[in-house]
């Protein structure tokens, strides 16, 4: 007789053949539990940091411009 246990967090049963079916249908890192693992951090290089900071300053400045436009339009 086939061994049956429950799906995590569910009241449904999953037979051992169904377990194999699920695992063979999905790539290993498609499983929900695999997503609990963090992807290794990458250290940003100097030019990358310069670009990211430049764009951050650009965005903040442009948001100020948008606020200014809203203010002038409201007057």
């Amino acid at each position, binding site marked *: 007789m086939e061994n049956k*246990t*429950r*799906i*995590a*967090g*569910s*009241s*449904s049963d*999953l037979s051992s053949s*169904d*377990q*194999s*079916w*699920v*695992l063979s*249908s*999905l*790539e*290993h*890192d*498609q*499983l*929900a*539990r*695999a*997503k*609990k693992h*963090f*992807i*290794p*951090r*990458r250290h*940003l290089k100097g030019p*990358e940091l310069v*670009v*990211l900071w430049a*764009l*951050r300053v*650009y*965005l903040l*400045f*442009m*948001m100020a*411009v*948008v606020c*200014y*436009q*809203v203010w*002038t*339009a409201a007057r």
Partner: protein
Amino acid sequence: MSVGSQPPQTNRIADEVVVITHEDVDRAHDRVRVSAARAQSGFFSGARLLWLLVGPGVLVMLGENDGPSMLSYAATGAKFGIGFFIPFVALTFCMAIVVQEMTVRLGAATHRGHAELIFDRFGPFWGWFSMIDLGIGNFLTLITEFIAIRAGLGFFGVPPWIAILIALVILYAALMSHRYWTWERITLAAAAFNLVFIPVALMTHPSWHAVSHSLITWQPLPGLNKDTLLIVLADIGATVTPWMLFFQQSATVDKGLTTKDIRFGRIDTVLGAALATAAAVATILATAPLFAHQMTADNFQAAEFAQALEPIIGRFGASLFALGMVEAGIVASITISTSSAYAFGEVTHKPHSLNLPMGQGKSFYSVLTLCAAAAAAIVLIPGLPLVYVVLLVNVVAVLAMPPALVFLFMLVNDREIMGDLVSPIWANVLSTGVVFILTAAGVLFGISVIAPNIFAALGGK
């Protein structure tokens, strides 16, 4: 550790304990159907494979034809008529294809959402910056979606609170299946209604000679001034925005697409862009008669566009136009609130999938519904300046796009996570071009606000 109190379903693969969840079982069902279709040959199995794999691309493109976008296109047609903006809008959708294709590859190669990858790869400092950009942008855009719904249903005399209630009920009804596939098909069916702008455009009997002339020559050109730049930015913001990156990558992952499906992911994206371009151009054509009749579009809201068009296309055509605005708002409110919920789940590492039963996806569904409900409530505040807010939301989206694109660019060229699927040189050249165009458009807009006299010196107004 299992979720809930029941013992987890475990299996041992390569010395690692694997826990199977409800989400995995649902996704496995979807993958089995894809594998079965792929195993067969012939036209019909190819068509079935396409049917099974389309979704995120069409949804993201038609979802971006949202309330503020359709209003931007309507304002474009009413203010500038047939001319420069028809080929320009087609170009912006080409930019959207370049950008969105990268999210398909990224999602299929890593099986991770966009927010999750930024947090893991670049750390929480940069991760939170991108999340703040996304959160603010999504919430402002959601507000404008409910503005469109309220205005569109207002055309039929529906009171604002009932209009908002109808939208929320549809949004929650799509979620009730707790199944990505069903949610996707319901939302796709709703999104198909975006094409209603095409018959509306045909009812205005557009001059096809003028349309083809504008597509070939990009003429007549609009004057270079602050109003034109606002519309230019609003139209760009109507096609490329940060939520699209997050949504399509997360939906690609939730749908379970793998590297074998990338070709269909690309077809899905191009198909979505083609449909969205058709609807966008149709909206410009539909309101172009307002330009020809010298009617001002400065204070038109969604319903007022429909009312203004009624003498030209009749009550039926105007009703279709108003319903199109409602559809645009509803589909976008579904996709945008979903993108917020995906991103929240990804950065907090809580379960985040439309395959989750309510009990396992409490935080996911809570964020999704609370975002939508909060935005809907704000729209019920009387006296909101609607059209200006709507156009500015698109402008803000364009301004937030370059930083988001640089993260995408860095991720999709990261060989450690992408392997051989890193972007080829031509894709990098195109995406760099998109970043420059968006940044330049933002800078021009800034100059037009701070120093409008410069445009006057260049011959503008």
